[in-house]
């Protein structure tokens, strides 16, 4: 929307009253309207600005935000392997926290972080809180929360907790109440960042004019604090973000955060513990890791000391941390802070551990194992929320159970009262959400997640100085207290207002620039290099298949259904590795058979079909999400989107038609925007090995295999390689094999020729890291030299008699073989020398104790 349309919208006051029409607080506190039913003062300026967009304008901005969210693919990605695809919508109106109430909330959250830190150190240290009876030990020690191997594993002189996510609601009186603490894998800060960027782009005016606290400072500080955690204060510590991998929830958020904070994104197989140190496997060998920002639940982190069935953990990690050679943020063992039994005791803990009253209270609740608590719980059961200590169990709202469910719950509580905490539900205050359909604001219950992390200036100080910094913003979602954010339909950005305009930061990314330290080069994890190589190969293979299939479908559609005569179709079937037709198939039967064979390539079950290849492309691209530019990622997200709907030849043809330029755009964007580091080179090597092989196979099909000889086949080769125009410009319309060979094999000036591709491969391979000690050429170098020399020394005269002379065909066949052999070996050689082939570690057998 441009400036002109804005001036044409109705007067803001009219829009404003339309927006607010019918808006009433739903009993209790409302964050938009005061008790008197009037707008709260801090909303005035922002809402007026919002209203200036006009009702349709707001709706459009909402759609725009949705589109951006979809394209970024962090919160949204149907293809995220195995992870739950979120389908939430970001509200164009942020949730606003006033500059007057922020200091209180900020202090409360910072206190909460200090409290959790003190408790964490106590529970794995002296255990005063248990010995003094502040927390019932028989509840705390329930399996899965307090992890025995972590006892005495923390440095008692320094802060243990690094960061904290806190779920909050406002109760019906407007007081902030804490619903849950998140310390293990705090999803949400990446989403909050993404929402902020999306809103800033879709509503630049609103964003620019609000005296809004920016997120960039908090994230820059988080990075500084991570760096300061490094043991022995190494000057350029290696800080990595550990994720459970593309199959896990939140993987794309991890990739987003890693990229934003400029940290290598690693999975367990990228790391190895040797000599009680953590190392990262990179192209250049093992590189020490100093700090790990962990996005993996505690119990999965180390199969030696924690869950033995973990295949996503790193064996020896707990020992490396215990030895002080690596710092984990948060440390393993922090999961105890999420134990539901702590809920009723925060008040007392705060007074005991910090000597101050608790600022942010939770819901009223009690441990059912306490004296007399069972009776009270059973009396009030239908009105309570019960939280079992079973790790991962969701809170149970007794009011939502049927009679049978309630009876079962009662039984479970009576059997093990010491395994439950009972809470009185909180009524969440309401806040405004834009209803796009009715084009007005409606009141909805809102939950928030806010984030704290260790203040970098105190990260290394003594315990008395430890302070936490609260991110001025967060993630809000529609839902009653305890409603998980991922199940919500609507999320909101959280804006914290300042008293005065904040320094303008137009691009969040720029604000973090001081942290951008170039890390490209041989530090690239070898798993990433491996995925980039295969992304190149699969992408190119998909391109080749899409071109061949497009050619085949075009030709098929041109035919008369009753007499399919084009001989090149047989060649295309062969090039696509489809079964040849039986000789007796004729007429419409023949047409139908060819069509079915060709369309089968869109089936997800076809081993080398387009759908399968597109999936391989997506799988590899997700493993390297943090290395791809946003534009490239957006383009790639669309590749293959309609393959599974291709049930007719014309739809299939269009899908192929679309895929070719999409892949070209993707690789083009990679070439233009990816730093030309080793990873990029390996992707290029993958592409050109594949393309070279495909071109050679096509040439053999059209010029050596006699059956398909002829102008139609030659034309198919030119069309598939997109060299039709180039050929015509040189040779008009006269087709001759020698000319085709020159264009596609020998002419190094033609980027589609094998000669050019080999030259490019040679250049890329010469730039790969080599063991410095070896005075000789690497096996990859020798193979590409072998192929190039074979081509350069080829006896062109011997090929002169093509297409009819058998000896010329034999000579060409021998030449193509001599080129294909080293290329096949090259792929293997690259893989052997540059990618770590890591087996998933296994447990030693255990023997039963007998007798």
């Amino acid at each position, binding site marked *: 929307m441009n400036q002109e349309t804005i001036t044409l919208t109705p007067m803001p006051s009219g829009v404003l009253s339309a927006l607010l029409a019918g808006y009433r607080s739903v009993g209790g506190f409302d964050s938009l309207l005061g008790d008197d039913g009037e707008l709260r003062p801090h909303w005035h300026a922002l809402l007026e600005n919002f209203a200036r967009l006009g009702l349709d304008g707001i709706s459009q901005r909402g759609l725009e935000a949705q589109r951006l969210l979809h394209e970024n693919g962090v919160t949204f990605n149907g293809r995220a392997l195995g992870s739950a695809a979120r389908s939430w919508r970001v509200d164009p109106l942020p949730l606003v926290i006033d500059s007057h109430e922020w200091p209180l909330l900020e202090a409360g959250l910072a206190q909460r972080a200090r409290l959790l830190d003190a408790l964490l150190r106590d529970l794995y240290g002296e*255990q005063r809180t*248990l*010995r*003094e*009876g502040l927390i019932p*030990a*028989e509840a705390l*020690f*329930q*399996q899965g929360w307090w992890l*025995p*191997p972590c*006892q*005495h594993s923390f440095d008692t002189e320094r802060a243990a907790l690094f960061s904290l996510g806190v779920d909050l609601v406002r109760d019906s009186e407007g007081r902030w109440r804490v619903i849950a603490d998140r310390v293990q894998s705090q999803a949400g800060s990446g989403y909050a960042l993404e929402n902020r960027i999306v809103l800033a782009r879709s509503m630049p005016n609103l964003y620019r004019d609000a005296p809004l606290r920016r997120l960039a400072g908090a994230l820059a500080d988080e990075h500084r604090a991570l760096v300061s955690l490094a043991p022995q204060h190494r000057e350029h510590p290696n800080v990595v973000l550990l994720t459970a991998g593309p199959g896990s929830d939140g993987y794309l958020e991890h990739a987003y955060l890693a990229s934003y904070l400029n940290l290598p994104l690693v999975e367990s197989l990228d790391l*190895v*513990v*040797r*000599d*009680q140190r953590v190392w990262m496997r990179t192209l250049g060998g093992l590189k020490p890791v100093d700090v790990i920002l962990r996005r993996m639940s505690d119990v999965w982190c180390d*199969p*030696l*000391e924690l869950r*033995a069935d973990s295949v996503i953990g790193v*064996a*020896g990690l707990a*020992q490396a941390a215990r*030895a002080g050679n690596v710092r984990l943020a948060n440390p393993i063992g922090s999961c105890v802070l999420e134990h539901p039994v702590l809920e009723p005791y925060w008040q007392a803990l705060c007074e005991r551990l910090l000597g101050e009253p608790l600022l942010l209270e939770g819901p009223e609740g009690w441990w059912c194992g306490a004296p007399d608590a069972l009776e009270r719980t059973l009396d009030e059961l239908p009105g309570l929320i019960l939280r079992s200590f079973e790790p991962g169990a969701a809170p149970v709202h007794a009011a939502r159970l049927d009679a049978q469910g309630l009876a079962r719950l009662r039984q479970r509580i009576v*059997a093990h009262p010491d395994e439950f905490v009972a809470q009185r539900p909180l009524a969440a205050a309401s806040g405004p959400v834009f209803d796009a359909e009715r084009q007005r604001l409606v009141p909805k219950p809102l939950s928030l997640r806010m984030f704290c992390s260790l203040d970098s200036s105190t990260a290394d100080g003594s315990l008395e100085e430890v302070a936490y910094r609260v991110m001025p913003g967060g993630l809000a979602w529609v839902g009653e207290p305890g409603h998980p954010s991922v199940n919500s339909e609507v999320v909101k950005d959280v804006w914290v207002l300042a008293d005065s305009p904040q320094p303008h930061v137009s691009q969040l990314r720029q604000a973090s620039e001081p942290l951008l330290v170039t890390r490209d080069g041989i530090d690239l994890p070898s798993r990433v290099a491996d995925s980039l190589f295969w992304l190149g190969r699969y992408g190119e293979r998909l391109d080749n298949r899409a071109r061949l299939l497009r050619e085949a479908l075009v030709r098929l559609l041109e035919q008369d259904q009753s007499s399919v005569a084009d001989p090149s179709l047989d060649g295309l079937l062969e090039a696509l590795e489809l079964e040849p037709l039986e000789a007796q198939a004729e007429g419409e039967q023949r047409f139908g058979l060819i069509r079915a064979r060709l369309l089968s390539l869109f089936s997800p079950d076809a081993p080398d079909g387009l759908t399968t290849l597109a999936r391989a492309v997506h799988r590899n691209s997700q493993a390297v999400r943090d290395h791809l530019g946003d534009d490239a990622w957006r383009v790639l997200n669309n590749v293959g989107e309609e393959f599974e709907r291709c049930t007719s030849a014309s739809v299939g043809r269009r899908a192929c038609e679309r895929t070719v330029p999409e892949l070209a755009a993707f690789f083009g964007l990679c070439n233009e925007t990816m730093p030309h580091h080793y990873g990029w080179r390996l992707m290029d090597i993958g592409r050109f090995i594949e393309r070279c092989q495909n071109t050679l196979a096509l040439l053999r099909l059209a010029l050596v295999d006699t059956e398909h000889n002829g102008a139609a086949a030659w034309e198919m080769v030119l069309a598939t390689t997109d060299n039709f125009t180039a050929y015509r410009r040189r040779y008009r319309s006269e087709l001759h094999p020698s000319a085709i060979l020159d264009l596609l094999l020998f002419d190094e000036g033609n980027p589609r020729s094998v000669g050019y591709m080999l030259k490019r491969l040679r250049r890329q391979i010469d730039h790969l890291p080599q063991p410095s000690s070896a005075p000789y050429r690497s096996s990859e170098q020798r193979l590409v030299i072998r192929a190039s020399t074979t081509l350069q020394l080829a006896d062109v005269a011997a090929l002169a008699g093509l297409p009819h002379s058998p000896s010329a065909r034999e000579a060409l066949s021998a030449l193509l073989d001599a080129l294909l052999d080293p290329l096949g070996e090259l792929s293997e050689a690259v893989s052997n020398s540059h990618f770590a082939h*890591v*087996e998933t*570690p*296994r*447990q*030693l*057998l*255990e*023997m*039963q*104790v*007998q*007798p």
Partner: protein
Amino acid sequence: MIYQLRHTTRYDYAATVTLCHSEARMLPRALPWQHCEPSEISIVPTPATRVQREDPFGNQLLYFSLEEPHVALEVSVATRLESGPRPAPVEDRLGWRESRILPPLSDPEALAVRMMTLDSAFVRRSRALADYARPSFREGGSALEGVLDLNRRVFEEFTYDPGFTTVATPLDEVLRSRRGVCQDFAHLMIGCLRSLGFAARYVSGYLETVPPPGEPRLIGADASHAWLAVHLPGSGWLELDPTNGSLPSEQHLINAWGRDYADVAPLKGVMSGGGEQRLTVAVDVEPLES
């Protein structure tokens, strides 16, 4: 009694292992009735790292890592130790129900006792276990009477059957089939006691085997053994050996204790590579003098 204890664990691999992280709990605990001389530990190949520490249950734990390619691993521990009689159990006047009351927090064992009343990896409390145990605890009877009777019943009603169970056989299966080995019986009785509300812990160690009269003692034919201890107000931690239906004596040498086997496995590890593995264990409990 003075014993020379030797425990050797050997792994042979079909393929090369490039990296292995391990934890051994093979160093016997020092106790008022068990005096241990320093152990001789031999690990082949020589570990790149070796760190000894005390685990949260007070056991000696040895972490080591092998970082060079190898095809076999052998860990041997030899310890000379002197074992004396345990303190005799004390009968108290409480009924068994009252005996389950947790010791006050001022008691040094207070936290450990609390932990041992809860479920653990191999032992989950259940009604079936409670039902099995209850006949041993008559109304008004003492806890000591009850646990001794339960110890006798497990010994008499369960069949020792090596090969029937594995390290992963669930407790209800053991209870149903009434079969198993010492590890199962220890877990089962711990489960029974915890299901009734007592604190019970798993004890791993060794038992001197006495050859039949006239036959020589076979070296290396002994094995690890497992039993349990229950916490009672008068006696403190009272050991019980349901496999033999007895109260452990000088012949029971304690290695480690924990919530269950998972806390005290003598050797565990995570390795890269290796293929098929073959495990051989030799334990020798040699009485030197009495």
